[in-house]
């Protein structure tokens, strides 16, 4: 090790410069860590709350998610940002409830390479519709020109429940063609004026249809 006396003025100067650089690099590293933490935490949580939602802004039943205050003038900032980002025209939840499913009951992503069955009973709602979109919110072209079923057009069983099949190949009964759309999004709309989300007109919990995967290619 060199003693102070053996160092030349140039070496002492270089040492001082090195110490100063290390000092500034330390400050820079602290600031970078601080800014990185703030950006990841701030933007990450904002993105999550806008894109996915939380129990404060959404209600969930099985694979279906509904935004509690969609389209309302008293909507929270996350709900406003969610639908502004989607670019869709949302109806007030005071009148119409919209539920979106991107996954089946087992948590698998809905995809056109698989076949699904949507089964349920929505007798407690005034009117409902079930539509299959691709993941960009566009209708799936098909030769049958069939994009949705409503309470007016669906074939129901004697007990009032219904089964709709989703798949590429034609199925008997209520079949919604999915073609080669890739990832799918199912949208269920129910007309229930004056009832809260996921409640029916009698105030009891509304039971949304099940989405079961049958098989995949």
């Amino acid at each position, binding site marked *: 090790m060199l003693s102070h006396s053996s160092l030349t003025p140039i070496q002492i100067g270089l040492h001082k410069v090195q110490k100063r650089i290390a000092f500034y690099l330390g400050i820079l590293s*602290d600031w970078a*860590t*601080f800014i990185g*933490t*703030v*950006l990841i*935490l*701030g*933007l990450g*949580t*904002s*993105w999550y*709350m*806008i894109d996915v939602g939380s129990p404060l802004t959404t209600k969930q039943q099985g694979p279906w998610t509904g935004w509690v205050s969609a*389209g*309302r*003038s008293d*909507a929270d*900032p*996350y709900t*406003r*940002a969610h*639908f*502004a*980002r*989607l*670019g*869709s*025209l*949302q*109806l*007030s939840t*005071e*009148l*119409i409830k919209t539920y979106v499913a991107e996954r089946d009951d087992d948590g698998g992503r809905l995809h056109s390479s698989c076949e699904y069955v949507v089964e349920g009973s929505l007798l407690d709602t*005034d*009117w409902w*519709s079930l*539509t299959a*979109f691709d993941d*960009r*919110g*566009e*209708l*799936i*072209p098909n030769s049958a*020109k069939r*994009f*949705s*079923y*409503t*309470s*007016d*057009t669906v074939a129901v069983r004697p007990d009032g429940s219904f089964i709709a099949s989703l798949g590429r190949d034609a199925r008997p009964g209520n079949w919604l063609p999915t073609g080669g759309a890739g990832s799918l*999004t199912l*949208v269920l*709309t129910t*007309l229930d*004026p004056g009832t809260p989300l996921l409640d029916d007109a009698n105030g009891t919990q509304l039971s949304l249809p099940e989405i079961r995967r049958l098989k995949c290619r």
Partner: protein
Amino acid sequence: MPLKVPQSIRHPNWRFIFAALVGAAILHICATMAAPYLTAESAYSRLAPALPINKVRILEPIAPGAEPLPFFPPDVRYAMCRFDTSKGPVSVAATLPADTGWTITVHAPNGNNLYAAASNPGRPTPISLLFIPSSEQFLGVTPEARGIARSTQPPQAISAARGIVILRGPQKGIAYTRYIDAELKKIACSGPKF
């Protein structure tokens, strides 16, 4: 061998953690509030160019490749009126038929629903709306103030500068097409010309 706990965990810099949390919270609020204004195109700005001002337009049945907006339900027929009250009040009159699934909604440019009503299967529901530029603007003396009794129910006044009225009729199949078209055509939207 005991696990070596890093210095930063044994002696956390609480000032740094607190500052980072406060900074993240501020950024979270700013990003959330700014998000609606950072989108490329709102639903209103996408629909508006295709809709004449203060006139009704009945949209063609929604088909793949011709959806005006993402996640636009295809099981409903639409009559729309884009209103602008900058030159004066705009009135809208419609009757929801005695049927299920019919709705009329008024959307502000930011997507808020200013008014919403659904049909009643038991009876037709007449709707009469008057859009006024400002709730404080004087629009003339009412018939009642002039001593004239109204023969009809006064319209519901809504203060809005711009927006879109949407009448929706559920598609029930080909057999109902003429009936739905006829009901959609009954909506009237009248106001100053642009």
